[in-house]
């Protein structure tokens, strides 16, 4: 007889894992399919930053909730997820960027975020080795932070198993068919499952999975690169974000003392190619050393590349589709790891109770994709 789940989830990254956990907690029977190993897509390439400093009000509210979840998640999952509220410091090297931050701070204050615009001298109190050349100040929120994307994802997956769900790794979904009120789902292992609902959490492959049901989903991957150094003395507790055209962002893990960071290539490199470039390996250290010259002696251990999944307006899609029972939770635009816990929880509320404690209507698939997030 065919095995049947209440919810079939496609994708073993942070989104699939979080959605699966909060649905399983609501007593749904969850089957999760991952075509490779968990975190093999975008999640495993994420550096682990978690911030509430956005300009879009709904994103701020969701991130306040996510930070609340992250801060007690080690206890809930029984696994140290390495959460540390080290803060985020957005540097302003031009009046335009400074004004963007000041405007965003006005919005963020409505949600009681302890965010402030600091003078260059105050920035240096937080990052003692910071190069102040050309710096006009920085937007700082001390309750932002970081956690380990691997630990969070595997922690959620282990809990899904404990709650009676099943995780199928190295198992690709080849076909999805509407069948009565539910779906049939066939995998590359030759097995077919039944699902009451199907949730597409496939990250960079969201559009590809949508095609299995004939949908055209507006999610487009592009390539970002990252690197990690050896462990080193404390050099930068907060995430430092440099928004100059040749800027970058990086922070130091509190747990392991590695410095990890990346930058957004200009122009963007579209597609799923995740090869590492020599350009990044030399350019990223130049940008890092310009901000903190004391990093010079620290050695780079490893570089990699991964995808951001962009939507036309820079905001996620959390929505049922025109096919009833087929949902998309994707297009996280490079913020999937930090959004994941709250999005997973709110999505489960919506599915089980009909409404979520923070309404997610702005992330519907049938919205106007014209307005843009300015603190991307």
């Amino acid at each position, binding site marked *: 007889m065919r095995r049947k789940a209440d919810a079939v989830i496609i994708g073993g990254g942070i989104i699939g894992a979080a959605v699966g956990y909060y649905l399983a907690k609501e007593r749904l029977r969850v089957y999760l399919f991952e075509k490779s*190993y968990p975190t093999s897509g975008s999640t495993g390439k994420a550096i682990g930053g978690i911030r509430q400093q956005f300009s879009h009000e709904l994103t701020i509210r969701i991130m306040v909730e996510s930070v609340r979840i992250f801060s007690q998640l080690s206890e809930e999952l029984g696994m140290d997820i390495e959460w540390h509220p080290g803060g985020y410091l957005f540097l302003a090297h031009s009046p335009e960027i400074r004004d963007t931050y000041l405007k965003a701070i006005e919005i963020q204050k409505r949600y009681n975020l302890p965010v402030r615009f600091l003078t260059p001298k105050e920035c240096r109190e937080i990052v003692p080795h910071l190069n102040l050349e050309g710096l006009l100040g920085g937007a700082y929120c001390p309750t932002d932070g970081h956690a380990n994307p691997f630990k969070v994802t595997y922690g959620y997956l282990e809990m899904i198993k404990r709650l009676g769900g099943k995780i199928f790794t190295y198992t690709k979904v080849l076909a999805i068919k509407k069948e009565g009120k539910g779906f049939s789902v066939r995998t590359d292992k030759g097995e077919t499952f039944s699902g009451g609902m199907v949730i597409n959490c496939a990250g960079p492959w969201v559009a590809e999975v949508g095609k299995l049901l004939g949908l055209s989903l507006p999610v487009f991957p592009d390539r970002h690169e990252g690197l990690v150094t050896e462990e080193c003395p404390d050099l930068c507790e907060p995430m430092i974000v440099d928004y100059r055209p040749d800027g970058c962002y990086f922070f130091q893990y509190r747990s392991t003392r590695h410095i990890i960071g990346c930058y957004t290539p200009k122009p963007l490199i579209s597609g799923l190619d995740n090869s590492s470039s020599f350009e990044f*390996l030399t350019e990223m250290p130049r940008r890092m050393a310009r901000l903190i010259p004391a990093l*010079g002696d620290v050695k780079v251990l*490893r570089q990699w590349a991964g995808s951001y999944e962009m939507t036309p307006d820079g905001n996620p899609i959390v929505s049922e589709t025109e096919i009833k029972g087929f949902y998309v939770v994707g297009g996280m635009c490079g913020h999937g790891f930090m959004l994941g816990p709250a999005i997973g929880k709110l999505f489960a509320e919506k599915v089980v109770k009909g409404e979520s404690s923070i309404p997610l209507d702005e992330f519907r698939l049938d919205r106007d994709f014209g307005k843009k997030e300015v603190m991307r």
Partner: protein
Amino acid sequence: MARSPKIVCRCEDVEEREVVKWIRRGYKTPEELKRILRIGMGHCQGRTCLSLLVRIIARETKSEIKDIPLPKRRPPLKPISIRTLASFYEKEG
């Protein structure tokens, strides 16, 4: 007498019993174990521990060493300082 722990990955201090525990939870590839335990993510980038890890997986899953997929290699092949990398184009002109 209690047996002393067997270290598999000396850069990241990973013990054999931890590896075996996670293999028994269903994570049977070096890619997965690396991400959960940091095995092979330290200074030597897996040069020392990877062959040990593959043998432990083969033993625990009763499979052949040749059938265990190796993790993806990441540049640079050995650690290089930020200063050296940052000055690459200056030196080249």
